[in-house]
């Protein structure tokens, strides 16, 4: 059993004002439950034991005082985030207003956000776990009221020693739409959970994700889309590119509840493995309890498009460079959904740099 004492000592080193009873209760709940064991199905491929090898200096619980009260915790990681975060965004976007600038929470090691889009509101939220911080957790509860729209971008362009845990819960009400793009580049050990509740008729979610771990990196994306009401739409497309000895995990559950008639759901997973030592475990899951629904799903382990390969080579592009170009095309299918141009261009450039032959591609830009 891995020791978690350094989590306690990191917490105890906080100024007194930060060590509130609520945070201490959360810490105890975490210490008592411990890290999730791989015997749990949701943790089959991801072992968080390396977290117990971090130094207490690396953990960096937030030293700010907090207003948060004692609540119950979904699991030990929820409790850990509650203990280590002092807060985060706590906002409501007023009905029928549109935020022109994306919300970008301050870059702290541990963040806990609450966001509500009131009726008809529109906003973009960027959750960023990039950088070299050794350990970072971001948990967010987001509520979309009727007819509101959220463009959520979660980016993790993290250093080779970075550990990341994120969990986003989205509740989508009548006719509201969540348009989500997630991108994972680099990092040592990351686990990202996304729960989407299509709670009322006409709610929709469009979810596009790219995971591209390198080196010995491990990245695990788990998504749950719950169709709880009739006439909801979900589109989910994840793409993976793994090289070196990297390991990626994707698990996508779509659950169509009993009353969710006329559900329209599609889930696609496509993966590219660029090195013999790399590994991807992808598992689409579909549970349907309603009888009048349209659901499609599938996972492919890809070869690059042969026709496109021939096209490029017939123009004189050598095979290796053609592969790089087509890998860009493969990723573009996800990245094109990032709406702020600057963010999309930065992420695309960053991805190029970590593809085999990427230097050559950069020289062509």
């Amino acid at each position, binding site marked *: 059993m891995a020791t978690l004492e350094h989590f306690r000592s990191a917490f105890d080193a906080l100024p007194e004002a930060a060590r509130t009873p609520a945070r201490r209760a959360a810490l105890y709940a975490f210490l008592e439950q411990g890290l999730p064991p791989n015997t749990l199905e949701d943790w089959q491929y991801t072992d968080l034991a390396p977290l117990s090898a971090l130094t207490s200096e690396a953990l960096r619980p937030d030293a700010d005082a907090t207003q948060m009260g004692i609540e119950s915790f979904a699991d030990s990681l929820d409790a850990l985030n509650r203990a280590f975060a002092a807060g985060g965004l706590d906002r409501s976007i007023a009905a029928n207003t549109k935020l022109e600038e994306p919300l970008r929470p301050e870059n702290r090691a541990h963040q806990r956000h609450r966001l509500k889009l009131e009726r008809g509101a529109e906003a973009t939220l960027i959750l960023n776990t990039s950088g070299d911080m050794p350990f970072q957790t971001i948990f967010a509860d987001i509520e979309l009221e009727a007819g509101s729209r959220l463009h959520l971008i979660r980016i993790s362009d993290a250093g080779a020693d970075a550990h990341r845990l994120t969990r986003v819960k989205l509740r989508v009400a009548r006719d509201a739409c969540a348009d989500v793009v997630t991108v994972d580049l680099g990092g040592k050990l990351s686990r990202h959970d996304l729960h989407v509740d299509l709670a009322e008729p006409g709610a929709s979610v469009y979810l596009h994700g790219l995971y591209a771990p390198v080196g010995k990196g491990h990245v695990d994306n788990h998504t749950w889309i719950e169709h709880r009401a009739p006439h909801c739409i979900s589109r989910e497309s994840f793409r993976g590119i793994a090289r070196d000895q990297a390991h990626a995990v994707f698990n996508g559950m779509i659950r169509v509840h009993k009353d969710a008639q006329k559900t329209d759901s599609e889930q696609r997973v496509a993966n590219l493995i660029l090195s013999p030592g790399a590994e991807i475990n992808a598992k689409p899951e579909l549970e349907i309890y309603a009888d009048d629904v349209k659901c499609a799903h599938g996972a492919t382990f890809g070869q690059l*498009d042969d*026709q*496109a390969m*021939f*096209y*490029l*080579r*017939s*123009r*004189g*592009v*050598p*095979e290796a*460079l053609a592969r790089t*170009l*087509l890998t*860009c*095309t493969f*990723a*573009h*299918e996800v*990245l*094109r959904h990032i709406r702020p141009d600057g963010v999309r261009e930065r992420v*695309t450039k960053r991805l190029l740099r970590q593809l085999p032959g990427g230097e050559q*591609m950069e020289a*062509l*830009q």
Partner: protein
Amino acid sequence: MLDIQNLHARIDGKDILKGIDLRINAGEVHAIMGPNGSGKSTLSKLLAGHEDYTVTQGSVRFGDEDLLELDPEQRAAKGIFLGFQYPVEIPGVSNMVFLKAALNAQRKARGEKELEAADFIAWVRHRVKQMKMDSAMLSRGVNEGFSGGEKKRNEILQMLVLEPKLMVLDETDSGLDIDALKIVSDGINLMRSKERAVLLVTHYQRLLDYVQPDFVHVLAGGRIVKSGGPDLARELEEKGYGWLQNSVGQAA
């Protein structure tokens, strides 16, 4: 320039080409016509190096080289260009990046210096203008969201930028309206010279009104069943391929 002798080829165990003989000299324009399924596209793709086709007999020489020994990218660097019947979309890779990757790779393979960035851009823009295209297309993905006609025009643009020696154009005229057909034809004519040759694969006489061929061949059942001058194309347009059935029969 190109010398095809007794070429037999198959795909998925099915014989498609059953003994093609064709010689194209520098400066000539040849047209290959023929009904669907006669092997026209197979011949085009085979010349460009498509790996799905297996040559079972015969030879193809390009200049001093055994063409069949070369990879597609090597053939391109030697000067072979295939205008695709169905050009492929490559989203996320801009036309500019694509053209630069192709031209620089070809120059490198030939032992030439890569173009300076400014010279390259000026060269491409010049060609874009000749094809009456909007230079904004250069920053768009290759053929991404292009209409059928735009894709064909983009094929000719690539050809003008790369300046190949042998241009094999597989139904480049299909899906073009009259204006686009004129622009595409002008592009092809721009490339005609004593050092270059063109092989037009088409169903229709129309393109040949704009790009006058020196020789016309009819391909049927995997063989060239008739060859002639430009008049043959007109005859085919009037009579269809039916009147050739006899000669097809004899050839088979």
